[in-house]
Structure formats: C-alpha cells, structure tokens
C-alpha cells in the first residue's frame, strides 16, 4: 500500500476492485464500512461479484472476469477526453502521458461496454467522480493481479492515479492489499528468485559483491525459478530436490494434479511445517516447526508495518522454531550459523536491507514501524511518494487490452473465478482446527447464479461436477445472486474439493503470477455412484 489503513479516512472516494475486502481483509473491510457510514467516504466497488461491500457502496460496476484493462483504460479515456486530469501534476511529476494519449482514444466507454459489460454511462460517472475528488484511493487485491495480464491491470490502475495526481497524500494512493500475514516480509527478506533482501537485484554485480562480502561465500548472479516454474522443472526432471518451509502447494497452486506428479518426481522433498499437510505427506523428510505463538520475530503487514511477534507458549514436543532448524542444517552442511535469538538475526537483516536500517526491536514496541526507515532517528514512512514520486517521475505506461487466456465457449460455457472465504485461510490447515470457524463453514460449495442453475436443472445444494480442461471436482451447488450469470465462484481452501485442480497454470509474463481468477468450466449434475 502507498497509504496507511488509517489515512484512508481522508479519502473522498475509494475505489475497491478485485478485493472482497470484508472477507479477505476483514478488519480493513470493517474500516471501509465505517468510513462510508460515518465519514462520508464515497465507496465504489468494481467487481464481477456482488460482494458484501456493495451494501455500503454508492456504485457497483460488474465487469466480466479477466477484462480489467478495458474498463481501466475506459476511465482514462473519459478523464483525458473530458479534460479532467490533473494537468499540473501530469506535467511536473509524470512521464509517458503523450504515449498513453495515443492509444487511449479507442477505449471509449461504448467500446469498453462491449468488451467487459460495464454500462458506458456508469463508467463515465465513476471516472468523473474519481477524477474530480480532492483525495481518492484505489484498493485492489488478487482479483486484479491473478491474471495472465495482471501486470497490465496494475499499470492501468497506476495510470489513473498518476493522471489525477491521486498519489502521495493522505487518502490518495494506489493500494494493493497483501494477502498473508507476512507475505510483505517474505518479499522484503528476498524470498524471491531475483532479489536479495531489500529488493536488491541478484543479477547486478554490485549487489552480488555486497552479499558475497557480507556472507563470506560465492553467490550466483543467475535469477532463479518462480514457484510455478519450479513445479514445471520438477515435472521435467530438471529439478531434483525441494525444501519447502510453511507452504502447501498441493492445495494453493494451480493445476494440483500436475503439482503432485512434479513433487513425486523429486529425489528429495523436505517439508518443514506445523502439520502433516497434503504437501508434507509426499515428503521424504518432514521437520516439525513452531507456530506463530511459539516464536519471536517480526511480521510485516500490508501497509509495510514491521511488528513484533512474541513467544507466548512453548513448542509442542520436539518442534523447533524455523530459524533454528535452518541454522542447524546449515551448520551440518559446513556453513555455521550461530544465532542466539531472533533479534540477532534482525540485527543482521537491518545491516543489509536499506529499508530496515533504522528499525530495532526496541523501537518497534506495540505500534511497529513502517518501512522505509533509513536510520534510527527516522519515524518510518506511513505514506509513499509524498511530494515526489520515488523513482523521480511517475511513469505512465500505455497498456492495451488483451483477453484472458481462456474464455467461456460452447464446450466450457462458464467462467470460474476463485477466492477466499471469511472463515478460512489459504489451505485451511490452521482454520479447520478451530471449532468456531468450522461451525460456520464446513464444506466447500460452488456459487452459481440461480438462473444458470435452473437452466442446467440443478437444485440448490445438489451435487455437481465442475470440470475444466485440467480436471474436475465434485461439490455442492450453492444458489447465490452474488455471482452474475455465466460466472461461478469457489473458494480454494479445502483439499477434498480443491478448486486448483481446475485452474490454469498460464502465467503473467512479467510477474509470473498464474491466472487463478479466470478458468473456463462446464457444470453438470452429479449422480452419486457414477464416475465422471
């Protein structure tokens, strides 16, 4: 997020797109409801589904899944053609405006309506409300990014903010909501194949030299494989060993059947986890680790806030904190790691990670600190790009609309989109062991529009087969007007009806994110006892 959650209260308009905020980031969802009810913030939801937040919104636009560049460019078209853009900001703080202008003419709201189904007059209205606002923020999540054109979607969003100067102020910014408790931190720490901690590129000689000196070892300057590429390499026999810490690709990755074959193909699979997950069951060695309640350390939230995690209870049995296991293994392999505690590791982190340089455990206290925090007197950075865009000039990048990899056709007439449910989390390894959460959500159902279901002769709660080009699952149908006609939704938490057997492994060429939000499927009634 370029903003903080708190300063969203300064926004006049908030556009929420591709984020089912009340379910996936519940406390931010509550905050948005509050802002709409008590602070007069105009909430606009752009989402194929009629998510709960539409209750509070002044407008809800429902694009067809996978066509987001179209409506985002449509907004840019209105903002430019009606002269609503922030001329001073565009001139002084951005580059690339002329290039955008060249391609944007054809994205008239009428043309966009044909592609994504948003009525032209409604799109015009939203564009005007956004552009004319004093402060406006855009919030988005995986509904924008998990597409084969996810990077283009994000660029198109960023273009809107730059056109209107809605960036770098309280209540004005571009705000991706990070999914997991420490996905931000895992990225910050270089848990990515192309960067060292602090997003320092591995292929640049100066970074390699810096870390070689610091770690006293020779390093590779060749960027590594991303998660889906690893699966493919294992499948092809190029990858021989994998060490998986606290992840469950057998539920969360696209095309699970393929993942399983790939993992079974490895000579060595090490899984380090707190439960015997679907992935751990395939391992050669399983190492028992500690849960968050048994750990000291830090997590980083969606607003870049580094916060202290404190040990409350002891690990069960012989389980150990992850960093201890890694240290012991490393020492056994001839590279000694002798850290006394988590804080000592953090002290090393801040020496090599410029954004963390000024953060200490002592300073974190109960409130945490938002990075970048370059020195110990720096208060942290609640809002990014204040006064000046971080890279110098905000780069407006024209992006053209391209359709998703799969569309509904005669053979597979529905579009399946996936997401989370309020009561469960990711592969549900943790949430399914909590009674309250299970009480509310025990089985996974596919949400289908009642009209579609009637046409297929399917009743509410009846078993259906949902089938894509990659596999099938058997689940109950749940009538819901949350999904428009032609679209079905299923959450991905439960392994017994794993929706990721159906999803597409096609990747965005830049971010390498899989297109989990758009898969073509067909649906039929399931007769018990028959094979599919």
């Amino acid at each position, binding site marked *: 997020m370029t903003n903080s959650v708190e300063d969203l209260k300064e926004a006049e308009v908030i556009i929420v797109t591709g984020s089912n905020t009340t379910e996936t980031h*519940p*406390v931010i969802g*509550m905050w948005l409801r509050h802002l709409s009810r*008590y602070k007069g913030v105009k909430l606009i939801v752009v989402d194929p589904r009629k998510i709960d937040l539409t209750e509070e919104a002044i407008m809800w636009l429902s694009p067809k899944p996978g066509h987001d560049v179209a409506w985002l460019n449509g907004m840019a078209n209105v903002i430019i053609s009606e002269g609503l853009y922030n001329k001073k900001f565009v001139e002084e703080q951005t580059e690339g405006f002329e290039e955008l202008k060249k391609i944007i003419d054809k994205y008239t709201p009428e043309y966009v309506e044909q592609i994504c189904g948003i009525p032209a007059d409604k799109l015009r209205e939203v564009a005007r409300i956004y552009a004319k606002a004093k402060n406006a923020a855009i919030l988005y999540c995986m509904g924008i990014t998990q597409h084969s054109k996810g990077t283009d979607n994000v660029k198109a969003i960023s273009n809107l903010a730059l056109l209107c100067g809605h960036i770098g102020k309280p209540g004005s910014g571009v705000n991706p909501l990070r999914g*997991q*408790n*420490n*996905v931000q*931190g*895992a990225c910050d720490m*270089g*848990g*990515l*194949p192309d960067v060292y901690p602090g997003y320092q590129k591995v292929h640049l000689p100066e970074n390699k030299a810096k*870390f070689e000196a610091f*770690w006293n070892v020779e*390093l*590779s300057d060749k*960027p590594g494989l991303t998660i889906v590429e690893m699966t493919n390499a294992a499948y092809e026999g190029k990858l021989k060993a994998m*060490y*998986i*810490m*606290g*992840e469950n*690709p057998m539920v*969360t990755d696209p095309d699970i059947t393929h993942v399983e074959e790939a993992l079974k193909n490895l*000579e*060595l699979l090490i899984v380090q986890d707190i439960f015997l997950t679907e992935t751990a069951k395939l391992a050669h*060695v*399983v190492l*028992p680790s500690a849960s968050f*309640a048994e750990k000291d*350390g*830090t*997590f*980083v*939230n*969606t607003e870049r*806030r580094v*916060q202290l*995690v404190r040990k409350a*209870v002891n690990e*069960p*049995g012989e*389980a150990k904190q*992850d960093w201890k296991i890694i240290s012991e*293994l*490393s020492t056994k*392999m001839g590279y000694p790691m002798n850290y006394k505690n*988590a804080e000592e590791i953090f002290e*090393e982190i801040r020496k090599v990670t410029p954004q963390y340089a000024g953060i200490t455990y002592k300073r974190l206290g109960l409130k945490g600190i938002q990075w970048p925090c370059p020195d110990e007197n720096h208060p942290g950075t609640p809002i990014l790009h204040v006064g000046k865009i971080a890279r110098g000039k905000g780069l407006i990048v024209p992006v053209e609309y391209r359709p998703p990899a799969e569309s509904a056709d005669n053979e597979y007439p529905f579009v399946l989109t996936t997401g989370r449910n*309020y009561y469960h989390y990711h592969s549900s390894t943790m*949430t399914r062991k*909590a*009674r*309250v*959460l299970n009480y*509310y959500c025990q089985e996974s159902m596919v949400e289908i529009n009642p009209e579609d279901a009637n046409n297929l002769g399917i009743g509410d709660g009846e078993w259906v087969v949902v089938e894509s080009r990659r596999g099938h699952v058997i689940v109950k149908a749940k009538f819901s007007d949350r999904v428009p006609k032609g679209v079905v939704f299923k959450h991905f938490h439960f392994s017994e009806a794993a929706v990721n057997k159906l999803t597409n492994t096609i990747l965005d060429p830049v971010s*390498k994110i*899989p297109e989990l939000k758009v898969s073509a499927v067909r649906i039929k009634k399931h007769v018990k006892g028959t094979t599919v």
Partner: protein
Amino acid sequence: MQIVIDGKNITADHGLTILEIAKKEGIHIPTLCFMEKLLPIGSCRMCVVEVEGYENPVTACNTPAVDGMVIRTNTEKIRNMRKDILRFLLINHPLDCPICDKGGECLLQDLVYEYNVDVQPYTIKAPLKEYKEYSTPAIKYHPNRCVMCSRCIRTCREVVGRNVLDIVGNGFDARVEPVNPDRCIACGECLSACPVGALTETVSPTKGRIWQIKRVPTVCAYCGVGCSLELNVLDNKIIKVTTDVNAGMNKGVLCAKGRFGYEFVNSPERLTKPLIRKGNELVETTWDEALSFVASKLTEIKNKYGSDSIAGLASARCTNEDNYLFQKFIRAVIGTNNVDHCARL
C-alpha cells in the same frame, strides 16, 4: 477557548466534549456506556458533571464544552448521583462476581468499588430473565448481568457495520437480542465491547482470571492486515485472544479468525517429531538423523546435478527472521537463487 474544570484553568480547542478535554488534562470522569471508537450517547449517566449556571448536571461524554464553562466533576452531589446510578444497576445485576469470567476486569465492579456502594437500599425484585441463543455459539449472553449500555449493539453497527443486535422489550424485560442473526460474522467485537460479564466467550474449556493469566502482545498469523492481538496464556496454553486498543493499527478490532482461530496451536495433530520416509511410510525419527540425512542428500544432489537442481520455498506464514535465514541458506549454502514463496497465490 477558556474553561475551568475542578478549579483548573484550561485552554482547549473548540468542538471537543467536556470528557475529551478532561481526559487530556488527566482529570478522571467515570464512564460506562462510553467507548472512544463509538458515538457518545450519554445513556448510563455515570459521567454526569456540574456546570455553573446550569440547573441540572450534564453528561460529559456528549456535551460540547463552550467558552467560559466552569465545570465540577467530583462534588458530593455528583458522587451521590453516580452512587445511585450504580445502585439502580445493581437491582438487576447479580453480584455473582466470584463465578463471572469478567471478575477482576469488569467496569461495573471497578465503579462499585470506587464509589463504595456497600448498601443496596432498593428492594424491587426484578424478575430473572431467561437465557436465549445468541447470534453465534462462540458467545453466551447473560441477560441478568446486562447493564443496557448498548456498547455491543453500537459496536456491531458503527465498527463492524453488521447491525446484528438491538434492544428488545422495555423496562425489566429489556434485553439485547440478535435481530439480524444471519448477519453475524462471529467477530466477537460485541464481546470485547461488553464492560461487564454479560457477554462471555464459550470457546475455551479452560478459563483464567486476569491475575492468573499472562497476556502476550503479538501479531495475528492470518491475513495481511496484521492486527495486534494478545494471547492469553494459562499453564502454557492459549485460552483466549484479546486486543489492546493502543497497539498496532487495528485499534482493538479483530475478526473471527483473529479472535477464535487460535485452537490450531493446541491441536493434537501438531507435528512433534521429525519424520523420515521408510518405504511408503513416514516414521518418527530423531533430529540428528533427519538433519544428517537431509544434509548428506542435499550435498549429494548438489555435487551430482549442480546447485540449480535444488530449490526452496520460503513462507509468507513465517517471520522475517525465518525467511531471511531460509533465503540465505538457499543462496549461500546451496548456491542457487531458486527461492520463492506463495506471494503470487
């Protein structure tokens, strides 16, 4: 703007209530139905204060201060009024503090203690109210303990935006009821708003008093909002999750997962020993054997096929410190940049 509270001359901003100014000045005015994150309603009347020239006392929580006000917060008249309010509440409220979950951290208990309400002269026998099902099985509503402050109702409306609860009935029959039970999301915000033991949680079979438990401030392990929470620990076991309104960015607000999703920590299904594959089975082993096997096998594969034949998945669930060491291990010890995690999933 100049005002006087208890003889102290104060310069204050316009638009603030008497209570807000008093708080800033460190002057204590008792409250019960007031919560900082809710709109003030002046319903319980514990915050009454005297204002010179006003015929009757006013409620400090929702009376804006105006220039020249002379306010007294602790006169005998005011103390007696507050004492009477507490006596009225005690007509309904049973003194079952020894068996109440909130014993030791109950606002009513504190106020009765502060005002030394040792005599209860009102003898009206209020009829006992029946227990009914609440909007979530995670919480139990004790109607006879309820002081009708409506903090639960207002939190559900103003903070959570779900409008599940309302007051039903009046007089002795009045009670809080889920009028829109289908809208309940079991976030437990009503529970945390209750100043007394009228709402208690039913999840943990083990209970602990505030002075028996250890409250450890930490961060929720579910989504990226990163709510601050406190693990309430008794005998090395989490028995409850609470929050501190002054910690983190969530201002004491949690969702169902944060508040009630902690049971996995104590689950009997947790892994407690390293496992190693023997044929088709994973069998228990020692740390030494497990790590020696991993170390020698990784070295063997690295020597035979090269560093890039090995890959690691770090974790969005683990700490920075875990992740830092993990990528350091893959890069420095294995010698490859094949490290990723589920950021894209």
